[in-house]
């Protein structure tokens, strides 16, 4: 089979050169990093942007009128504008910086949940959610006395839209759904989900942690009310992510955490709160990381998200084509096609996922093994763990070849 470089104009060599970590060797071989779904490698432009900021421009934001504080503030607010631009948000005030997608969801579960969810109210989740889009809602349900419904998936790993529509008839206050599954690679029809949910009177929060690195986003087109992303899956630093929310919705919410920056005025009698997004950014934020995230997004934008999607699809399709060559291998999630983008999870009869990943590591191939923070889904699939290969802008078909070779070896080690 031809490598992707031969049949595509995607500048793969140039892209790979932008990721210093790809020069690493693991067990004497160049690392084949197939764990970008857990955390993507860091793009050099972003590493350098963080370094430049730390060396020359660091100060606290929104505090002093001195030059360094003004520079830091400009860079931090510029980062917000970049994120807004990248995700197709209409207004940069709709972007709240948080630690990660998990914190973004917790923010909504606390701030929106406290004001809008009471005893007997319902929240609709799907069976394919990451724990980050389950646990905050379970905690909210416990606090408020609310109920959770689970929209099922079909045997291919697609959301059962008929069952979803039926569950909407129970009148949930909110639908919380992943845009792209971190296990199955399913891309959910978010625009349709939003339309149905809104018609039933529910708001929609989408977990975009896996989708954002692969898809060009437009919040208006998706029709969602809240969208959560995380920087470290977007080739940026850890400790930074963003919540997008519709402006009028965010403005109606009470604060999440209290402290500096999020106030308008503090008196002995009480405090009035700042307008959004400052209201949700208590304390000194992760300034350098926000700048690093924005730099990574600009790098992605220069590459073009259409080209990124095409490359990712090509790599995933190649993996879906080659993996079944391994005897006893079962792939989870939809087959090749429009509804699949993202990671490929699998199991091999007779070799536990942990052992698969341990043996692959000795070939320099990094994959993740475990429940992928999706135990509800594991339960639905009838497994306790899977191995998962997940891809990035730098993934090559040659790395998929090495994955397949490693899997053949795993069977050999287990005398299968």
């Amino acid at each position, binding site marked *: 089979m031809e490598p992707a470089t031969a049949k595509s104009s995607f500048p793969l060599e140039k892209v790979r050169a932008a990721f210093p970590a790809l020069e690493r060797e693991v067990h004497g071989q160049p690392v084949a990093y197939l764990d970008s779904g857990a955390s993507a490698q860091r793009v050099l432009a972003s590493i350098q942007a963080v370094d430049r900021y730390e060396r020359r421009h660091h100060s606290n934001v929104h505090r002093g009128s001195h030059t360094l504080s003004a520079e830091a503030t400009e860079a931090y607010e510029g980062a917000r504008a970049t994120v807004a631009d990248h995700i197709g948000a209409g207004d940069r005030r709709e972007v709240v910086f948080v630690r990660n997608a998990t914190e973004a969801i917790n923010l909504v579960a606390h701030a929106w949940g406290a004001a809008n969810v009471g005893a007997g109210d319902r929240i609709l989740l799907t069976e394919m959610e990451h724990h980050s889009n389950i646990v905050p809602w379970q905690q909210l349900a416990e606090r408020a006395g609310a109920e959770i419904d689970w929209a099922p998936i079909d045997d291919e790993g697609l959301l059962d839209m008929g069952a979803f529509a039926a569950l909407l008839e129970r009148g949930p206050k909110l639908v919380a759904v992943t845009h792209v599954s971190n296990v199955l690679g399913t891309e959910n029809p978010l625009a349709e989900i939003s339309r149905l949910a809104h018609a039933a009177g529910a708001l929609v929060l989408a977990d975009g942690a896996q989708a954002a690195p692969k898809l060009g986003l437009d919040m208006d087109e998706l029709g969602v009310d809240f969208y959560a992303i995380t920087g470290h899956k977007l080739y940026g630093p850890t400790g930074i992510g963003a919540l997008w929310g519709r402006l009028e919705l965010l403005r109606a919410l009470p604060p999440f955490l209290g402290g500096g920056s999020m106030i308008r005025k503090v008196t002995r009698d009480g405090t009035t709160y700042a307008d959004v997004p400052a209201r949700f950014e208590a304390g000194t934020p992760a300034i350098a990381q926000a700048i690093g995230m924005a730099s990574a997004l600009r790098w992605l934008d220069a590459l073009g998200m259409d080209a990124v999607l095409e490359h990712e699809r090509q790599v995933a399709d190649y993996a879906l084509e080659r993996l079944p060559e391994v005897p006893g291998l079962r792939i989870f999630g939809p087959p090749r096609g429009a509804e699949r983008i993202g990671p490929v999870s699998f199991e091999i009869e007779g070799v*536990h*996922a*942990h*052992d698969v990943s341990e043996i692959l590591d000795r070939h320099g191939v990094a994959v993740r093994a*475990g429940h992928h923070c999706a135990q509800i889904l594991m339960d639905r699939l009838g497994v*306790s763990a899977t191995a998962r290969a997940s891809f990035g802008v730098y993934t090559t078909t040659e790395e998929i070849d090495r994955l397949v070779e490693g899997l053949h070896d795993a069977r050999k080690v*287990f005398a299968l």
Partner: protein
Amino acid sequence: MDELYRDQILEHYKRPHNFGHLDDADLEFEDTNPFCGDEQHVTIKLDGGDRVEAIAFEGKGCAISTAATSLLTDELVGMSREELLRLPKDFVLELLGIEISATRMKCAMLGLKIVKSASIGQPAEWEDEGEAGDPSEAVADLGQS
């Protein structure tokens, strides 16, 4: 490369000893490897006093966790609950006889942790890595249960 997956480990993985469930168990406990969600369930029948007469385990797991618990359960008949609690981590590591990396330590220790938890009837407070939380400290809990 095959040091970790040498024949003895694979043999215990493919055909684990003491695999199953004792319906007339006096002690039982079930726990999960939080790293991956693998579960094991241990059942222990006592001899009328305080000593293990029979032990069985069931569950899904990797080669390391399955082999470790298979090897461990071969050694426990005749031991008192206090002796179970005093078993050090090295007891399992020596049975395995292979180098266990930090990431696989939770796999190797799952069975021992469950056996100790079963003997006190509650989760044994115990760090999988490092020196902290020597499992023998749990002996103190035995008096209270």
